[in-house]
């Protein structure tokens, strides 16, 4: 099983009220649970089933993912800069594993 690598590209600072772009990707095979290995056994489902972005503890972006999402799920979204603090990114995998990244953000 691949160890997923989460990555985020986000500015470290923005002016108050400014809208900024957030790009996230996680390298993940998104195994659907619908395939068989070459012995004919079902390969168990293992996907990222949820992605959440919190801005100072408040959920600002959240997605539920299903089997039809292709490998390496990529999200690009916009946020409005309101106050300095922290952006937290959480990817939840089938089976309970969680992958996280945090990013300090300054509003000047």
């Amino acid at each position: 099983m691949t160890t997923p690598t989460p990555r985020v590209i986000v500015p470290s600072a923005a002016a108050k009220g400014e809208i900024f772009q957030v790009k996230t990707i996680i390298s993940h095979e998104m195994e659907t649970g619908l395939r068989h290995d070459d012995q004919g056994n079902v390969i168990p489902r293992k996907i990222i089933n949820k992605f959440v972005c919190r801005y100072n503890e408040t959920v600002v972006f959240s997605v539920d993912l299903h089997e039809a999402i292709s490998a390496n799920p990529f999200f690009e979204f916009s946020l409005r800069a309101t106050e300095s603090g922290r952006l937290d990114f959480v990817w939840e995998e089938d089976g309970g594993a969680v992958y996280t990244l945090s990013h300090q953000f300054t509003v000047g």
Partner: protein
Amino acid sequence: MKSWTRREFSRLAGAALLTALNQPKARGQAKARVVVIGGGIGGATVARYLAASATAIEVTLVEPRQSYATCFFSNLYLAGLRPFESLSHGYEALAKQYGIIVVHESAAAIHPAAKTVALNNGSKLSYDRLVVAPGIAFRDRALEGYDEAAMEIMPHAWNAGQQTRLLRQQLESMEDGGLFVLVAPPNPFRCPPAPYERASLVASYFQRRKPKAKILILDAKDSFNAQDLFQDAWNRHYPGMIEWLPAQFTGGVTAIDAKTRSVITAGATFKAAVANVIPAQMAGRLAQQAGLANRSGWCPVDPVTFESALQPGVHLVGDAIIGGDMPKSAFCANSQAKACAFAIAADLTGSARFPAHLFNTCYTYLAPDDAFSNAISFKPVDGKLKSVISFVSKVEESSEVRRQAARAAEGWYDAFTHDVFG
């Protein structure tokens, strides 16, 4: 588009090598002169098939190098699975067995009105027909900071030779745990699966010798050739070792800093232990200088005769042309070269014309014992080269099928290079 079964594909791939061996009879009197510039796969094939098919044609092949190293299979050399010498092919058989005049010089300029080629040594060659097989060049200023000095630090290794050896040396001397960054080019480029085959085979080398090393592919694209096959193989063979980042995430590679061995994208900078930078491409320099390329940077041709749409009397084959559905592969160059040779022979000697049978056959290694294949036939439709029937390996294939493909590929290499260089 129709599909071939695996069995039909095997038969056809063999037949593709044989069809062009039917030799038309020459009936000209004085010898017509054909000059071929470029001794890569396309150029060498045109020269060989013209010389073999029409004794009434004098064929001159202009190529500065004494031997040609194939790009295909060079990824096996990078992984330590094949000696460099096994990729190298000389022109002796073309000269001795086929009577081709091999001139080891560079072409400096083409004069289509006078029907002459000026060579770098000051001499001049006259022709009745000219074939230019210039291969690829890198686009100017495609990546800021990626100049010739930077190429010696962060090699492209996209023309097999010294660059390939340099990359191999760097991979060998890299410490375990190092990051190998591969910058993959935008479409269209030479050999669409090759950057990803390279990542796969370098991973197989790392797995054997440097198991803590990582590979990061920074792509100029958002998807790539046979992506499902590669990603499936990366998860099976090298879990956690290869990471691929599409342009939509990084914003694309914009610059290279050779001093720090860093690759700079719009969104982030990545520092490499070893970097392989494959820049955006266009038709080779000679095609640009001679007005054979259009604004796209590639060369428009007639899909039946491979005569230039811009310069009458000049033909082009291989990676430099606008090939429609035909990928920029060595096998396509070889197939185009045969069609081109027979069209020229028919024009100059009145020999029979053949409908073009155009094929591609490729094998791509995912691991030393795991290869996939594809085969596509093409035909000219409304001035463009369209794919007709295709076979492509599938993700679900058994490991035994893949093992057989890896062995079949070796036979393919030997038969193919023998077809080109004799």
